[in-house]
């Protein structure tokens, strides 16, 4: 089975985000970058599918700066076979240019399944995977929390408000992975050693600018700490009074 996984290099979820001097982007100095957490689910699922099929290849594709090689190596250390880096020093906020570059790279790869994360935790568009599927005219299911693949067909479950959609499709196809799909493995030391020798192709991505212009990047208004209305059950009346008469939400 031939599988591709698209991964992104993102700031760690616990990183402190600092707005850069230009007021339009983040200051990455001192920030720890990681493989996007949702992409770990995608890598794990691809590895499991390859293992279940008994043979095949898992290719990791990333659009990013030079440093994103490290992110690809993380996926290779988990067990993927080879990597492709489409180099671009900057990434537009509009998801279409990245999707277009990925679609061009994946188009003639002969993949049975292409996996993505549900969202990149930095820009959080939740779009790139589904866009790639549309550009390649492949069936796709997004935010998948359960996946069965057998006999060239797939059944995926995705969570919607107050329910679960069950979606059937034929391969080749695209899925984007949600939390709950699996438990991603940690790269073992042996995997990390082996990853250093696995092939990693680097090419230019040649991205368009996209259709969104950044005017500014700002910190959200700080929530002002409110007040403690009291202690224990006696404070309930004071709370209700505040919710009714001050906040006017009851």
């Amino acid at each position, binding site marked *: 089975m031939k599988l591709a996984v698209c991964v992104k290099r993102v700031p760690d*979820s*616990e990183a*402190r*985000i600092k707005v850069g001097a230009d007021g339009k982007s983040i200051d990455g100095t001192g920030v720890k970058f990681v493989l996007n957490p949702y992409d770990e689910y995608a890598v794990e699922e691809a590895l499991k599918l390859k293992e279940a099929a008994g043979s095949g290849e898992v290719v990791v594709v990333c659009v990013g700066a030079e440093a994103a090689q490290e992110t690809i190596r993380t996926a290779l250390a988990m067990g993927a076979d080879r990597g492709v880096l489409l180099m671009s020093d900057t990434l537009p906020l*509009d998801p*279409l240019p990245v*999707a277009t570059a990925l679609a061009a790279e994946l188009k003639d790869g002969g993949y049975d399944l292409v996996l993505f994360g549900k969202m990149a*935790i*930095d820009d*959080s*568009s*939740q*779009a*790139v995977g*589904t*866009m790639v599927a*549309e550009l390649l005219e492949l*069936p*796709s*299911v*997004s*935010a998948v*929390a359960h996946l069965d693949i057998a006999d060239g067909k797939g059944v*995926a*479950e995705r*969570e*919607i408000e*107050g*329910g679960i*959609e*069950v*979606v*059937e499709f034929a391969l080749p196809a695209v899925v984007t992975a949600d*939390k709950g799909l699996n438990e991603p493995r940690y790269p073992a030391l042996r995997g990390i050693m082996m990853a250093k020798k696995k092939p990693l192709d680097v090419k230019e991505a040649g991205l368009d600018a996209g*259709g*969104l*212009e950044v005017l*500014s*990047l*700002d*910190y*959200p208004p700080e*929530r002002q*700490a*409110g*007040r*403690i*209305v*009291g*202690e*224990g*059950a006696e*404070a*309930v009346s004071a*709370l*209700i009074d505040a*919710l009714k008469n001050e*906040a006017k*939400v*009851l």
Partner: protein
Amino acid sequence: MANVLAILEQRGGTLKRVSHETLTVARRIADGLGGEVHGLLIGGAGVQADGLGVFGADTVLVATDDALADYQGDRYASIAATAGDFDVVVVAATALGKDLAPRVAARLGCALAADVTEVRYDGGIVVARPVYAGKATYTLKVTGSPCVLSVRPNAVAPEQTKKPGASESVTVDAAEPKAKTVEVKQPERAALDVAEASVIVSGGRGLKEPENFKLLEDLATALGGAVGASRAVVDAGWRPHAEQVGQTGKVVSPNLYFAVGISGAIQHLAGIRTAKTIVAINKDPDAPIFKVADYGIVGDLFEVVPKLTEEISAIREG
């Protein structure tokens, strides 16, 4: 003319309230552009599209087919992308909208501003997009045309205007979807989803045992709200993932959010930054949740919550 398409959402044939927010945003943009708002409602036979002029629809296109009662991504996308010549497409960033918006943008070959929390027209469309799990917000100007916007539920208050809102049916081609929704499983107790609820009562590890969430269910019922959860209790298997609020769960914008026995870790706070009013109930006066809460009660939740439920029920009944 620069018209705006507002993709409306129904579930089981009934229009979702979030569609009023979608129309409100579409109206605001259309007024800026000097164009019309065309709603688009896709669903099974008999979907209701009446009265949408109130929220600013000039017309409502209704595409019905029994095979479209449940969401079918590629069919919905093809109907939306071919519904007419539009400068802007607006959809709510619900589970459906988050899947549909990128499909439509890819088909139109245009920009997508996803999950925006503010939209204004200022010589062009300007939107606010929270990023890095709400730790920063981009202000973006849309430079291309057409464009697709998905708008976070509850972020924009519906506004009423008076437009005709006459419905018009559109013919749809019978086509087999590439990926087909064959079933929508409903949980035994159809709970209100945290992403849509205007009141949320969330619980964390302070609840001690899964059975104790009954206390929060009772409070949520009294308030007509939904139950939410911290990741700690979801990971422990006490509550379903659908209820998780935070960075790896749902980002919510209710009017009223209760954090009960939740410490207020940064990843949890990432999900509630845009809640209008936050109430914290925690026995530890130094819990970080008190730094963001509008109102706090320091105390044992097992004493506070039942009392709160009792008093709120009394108000609701009286």
